[in-house]
């Protein structure tokens, strides 16, 4: 019979959170041994919250340019050369946008983004499903193709499209722009939806086959409903990418299908430097995007790295 070591005691280790891998362990404030002087306690509190305070401070610095634009939109025109943050906010800047082309361009942006999203989903979703369930030999090559189409500089596509549209009569049309947007949005849909379809177990589809479904019936009734959140996120990402485009819209539209980003630049060039108008229109144009982004922030990285990294 062996006897236990009577003087055994567990080693005291530096407490490290096992939930989150921190690059360095956070210095713990010393327990009761700290002398109860208010200065030291405040120093301890500061140390504990240093990270949070630094983060917020940096956030304010980084967000300053953005916030400045937004507040400029609400400033009365006479005050824009002042720096004072005390002003009576006015919607004058926004109201002035109602005249002229801006409202139409905003509407065009909505139409093009929606159409582009719809087309991309319609064409891309079945393809994504086929690629998921059909063990494709050339998967890597398709991935490279998708990556290149995402990464190619717009100038490479704009010249041919510009020339082709002149001939086809698709210049300055919403449909023409939506088709061009397929160059990046279709790839996004195919790439993202693949990962969402992969998450649906094949056993469910097999059960559906036995219950009486064909391939696309099972897809429609079982797979797609289960991938619905992913579908929504993908749709939003497509919308954002289409909405944000500037280059294609600049080249391929004139007055009829002009989108909001291009219309703003018109203020710069043709209507003089009307800063309030610029700020107001900029605020409006970014508004839908910021809202949507908050909704899909978890999928943002996947969308932006599509094709490059295999999730």
């Amino acid at each position, binding site marked *: 019979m062996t006897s236990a070591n009577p003087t055994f005691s567990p080693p005291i280790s530096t407490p490290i959170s096992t939930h*989150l891998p921190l690059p*360095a362990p956070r210095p713990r404030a010393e327990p009761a041994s700290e002398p109860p002087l208010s200065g030291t306690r405040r120093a301890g509190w500061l140390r504990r919250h240093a990270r949070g305070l630094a983060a917020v401070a940096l*956030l304010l610095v980084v967000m300053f340019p953005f916030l400045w*634009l937004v507040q400029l939109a609400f400033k009365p025109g006479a005050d824009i050369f002042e*720096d004072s943050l005390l002003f009576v906010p006015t919607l004058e800047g926004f109201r002035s946008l109602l005249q002229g082309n801006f409202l139409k361009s905003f509407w065009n942006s909505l139409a093009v983004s929606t159409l582009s999203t719809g087309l991309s989903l319609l064409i891309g979703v079945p393809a994504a499903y086929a690629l998921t369930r059909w063990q494709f030999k050339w998967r890597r090559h398709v991935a*490279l193709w998708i990556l290149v189409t995402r990464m190619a500089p717009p100038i490479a596509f704009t010249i041919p499209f510009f020339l082709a549209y002149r001939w086809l009569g698709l210049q300055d049309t919403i449909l023409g722009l939506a088709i061009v947007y397929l160059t990046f949005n279709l790839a996004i849909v195919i790439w993202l939806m693949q990962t969402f379809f992969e998450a649906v177990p094949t056993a469910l589809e097999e059960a559906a086959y036995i219950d009486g479904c064909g391939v696309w019936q099972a897809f429609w009734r079982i797979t797609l409903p289960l991938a619905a959140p992913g579908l929504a996120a993908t749709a939003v990402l497509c919308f954002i990418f289409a909405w944000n485009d500037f280059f294609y819209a600049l080249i391929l539209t004139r007055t009829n299908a002009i989108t909001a980003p291009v219309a703003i630049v018109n203020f710069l060039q043709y209507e003089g430097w009307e800063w309030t108008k610029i700020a107001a229109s900029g605020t409006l144009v970014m508004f839908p995007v910021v809202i949507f982004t908050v909704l899909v922030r978890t999928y943002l990285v996947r969308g932006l790295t599509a094709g490059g990294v295999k999730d």
Partner: protein
Amino acid sequence: MSTTLILHPGTGWEAARRRAFLWGLLPSLAVLLAITLVPAAALLVASFTPLSLTDAAGTFRFDDPLVNYRHLLEDERFLRSIATQLKLSVSSVALQLAVGLALALLLNGRSRLLAATRTAFLVPMVLPPIVVALIWKILYTPDVSPVHRALEAVGLPVRSLIANPDTALWAISLADTWQWFPFTMLMVLAALQMVPDEPLEAASLDGANRWQLFRYIVFPHIRPVLVVCGLFRLIDSFKAFPLIYVLTDGGPGSVTEVTNYYGFIQAFNFSYWGYASAIAMVILAGVFALSWLVGRLGWNDHDKR
């Protein structure tokens, strides 16, 4: 009695299934072919001609296919644009990596405050690029910029950065970094989440300080992500347009004229479509090479796991 039947690949449920998948894939393949490969081919073809607006039919000829490419080699403006592009891309990406990494390290914590700030930091990246350009146009225009006026008030008047040939490119680089650092930050944050706990705990018990922990354990782990991230941003930086268009229009002179912008001017200011196509082909080749590299690294990294 039974008879054995040899199945042909064309019959049966599995074959029907394969056919169904093919039908699902075909529209996408057709569309992608039509809108990517066909235009790319057209671009290639156009790059072999001196096509231009002034005599569209007449200039669509192939008697001297390499005329544009020869011209490119002698074109000083083009060569300068490449140098400008490299300067802008490298400086911008380096800054993005540095800022993104620093912020990721700072914000990698559990509190709700940090989580909220992480989301807030995404804003510059998701703004429409044109809005980003406008924001910085305001900041860089001395008349309306609070920064300029503040500096003036303190007694350090600064002239317009974007009107000064020496500082214009760095001004754009700064704006670009502001726009894209959240991308790096996100990627590094994701990578930090995957750094395994045990080596960190063991090293900390062994007495390593913060810097040592970072340098010997964390950094090797996130280095591949930084590389892929850097390459991604590098490729993306070739597309830089709205910033230049709004802030400097390629100027002053052609100091901020990157290759992409030069191509734009050739194509849509001068309407030298053939020549612009050649420029675009050069950019495309560079993008292709880098994309291949990214694809290689991204896939290899996954295969290794």
